[in-house]
């Protein structure tokens, strides 16, 4: 089962205790949304769930196994979208997909073109990314996300810079992802409403 469990998470950033005994489960087939004010630790939590930030106390389990037991296997199951898209401005959108996804799985030109079309970027595949707007770059990052095939999505403010159409595409992607039994944990200021799947939220203080 595609469950991610966080148990009694404690984390300090300098003198500030960001996470205080946080416990939750995000099950396969559901989208867990993390809300909270600026600085409440949403990004830190997601980075801890990725394994990028070590915990002072607590455990995170993916499919029942501690994520530190086999990080490479865990990372191959997750896709992370942070504040920064992780895309290269000097490469085209298509090259970004090919090089970004090619590290994880075999990818064809048809896969890349199809994902860009679905994200409304059919005309922009051959343009250097630095010539696209911030919202268009986010759409390229979402196209990459949709092609990862990862069972766990960890998304940090995925709707940032997206217009109404882009937000709709994001909801469709999330809906399609969780409807296949996969899990998503999303840090967001505004709750995303999926039509056919359970959505729960955890508020960080």
């Amino acid at each position, binding site marked *: 089962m595609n469950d991610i469990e966080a148990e009694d998470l404690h984390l300090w950033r300098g003198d500030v205790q960001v996470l205080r005994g946080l416990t939750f489960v995000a099950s396969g087939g559901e989208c867990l949304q993390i809300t909270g004010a600026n600085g409440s630790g949403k990004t830190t939590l997601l980075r801890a769930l990725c394994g990028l930030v070590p915990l002072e106390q607590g455990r995170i389990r993916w499919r029942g196994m501690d994520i530190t037991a086999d990080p490479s296997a865990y990372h*191959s199951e997750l896709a992370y979208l942070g504040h920064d898209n992780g895309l290269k401005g000097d490469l085209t959108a298509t090259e970004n997909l090919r*090089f970004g996804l090619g590290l994880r*799985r075999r990818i064809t030109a048809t896969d890349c073109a199809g994902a860009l079309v679905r994200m409304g970027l059919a005309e922009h595949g051959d343009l250097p990314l630095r010539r696209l707007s911030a919202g268009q770059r986010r759409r390229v990052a979402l196209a990459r996300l949709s092609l990862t095939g990862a069972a766990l999505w960890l998304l940090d403010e995925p709707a940032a810079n997206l217009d109404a159409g882009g937000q709709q595409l994001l909801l469709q992607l999330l809906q399609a992802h969780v409807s296949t039994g996969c899990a998503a944990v999303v840090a967001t200021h505004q709750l995303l409403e999926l039509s056919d799947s359970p959505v729960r939220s955890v508020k960080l203080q």
Partner: protein
Amino acid sequence: MSASRVSFPAAAALLMARDLRLAMRRAGDSLLPLGFFLVVTTLFPLSLDPELSLLRDIAPAALWVGALLSSLLALDLLFRDDGQDGALEQLALCGQPFAGLLLAKTAVHWLLTGLPLVLVAPLAATALGAPYAAMPGILAAVLLGTVALSLIGAVGAGLALSIRRNGPLLALLVLPLAVPVLIFGARATALAIQGEPVAAPLYLLGAIAVLSATLAPWALAAAVRIGLE
């Protein structure tokens, strides 16, 4: 959608292809350290008496200090952009061995900044009065030395990743570690110019390069992970 996994060699080759393509699109960044090396090494003959014996005496120091500073200048390019745009996080989380991917990036960095130094070293050495017979020894020393400098420097660049203006810290971290390369590289160059056997310092340079290639990937991965926290 076929979700077949990619082997590590294929992933590393793809990452190297990506970095080479990015470098081609920003050729100026890659050429800067080479230009710096050429300017520094040619300034010595211009600023000293054009006496051949004097130039040959200072040639090892000029070549190796130039190579060391040039390699330091290039280190800033290694992880800076990938750290700023989030690409380094994506590398850390792609499910491939992170140490291996960082080694692949360092290999590209050497191809772009170390190999050009090897190729122009005979030119710089000639400007400093080195005889042609010394060129094989100088080439071998610079080849091994730049490999070691790239690997040692990459660890320093990883450690300094989270610091915005990291140039001075990078120099403080890397220069002491690079001293053995400087000593044995300069010694090999001096022996080559004098027409004496260069095997001993070359073996030591080779040992440093092999040791760096063995240990650097793990140290590098740990350093970059700290920078990503």
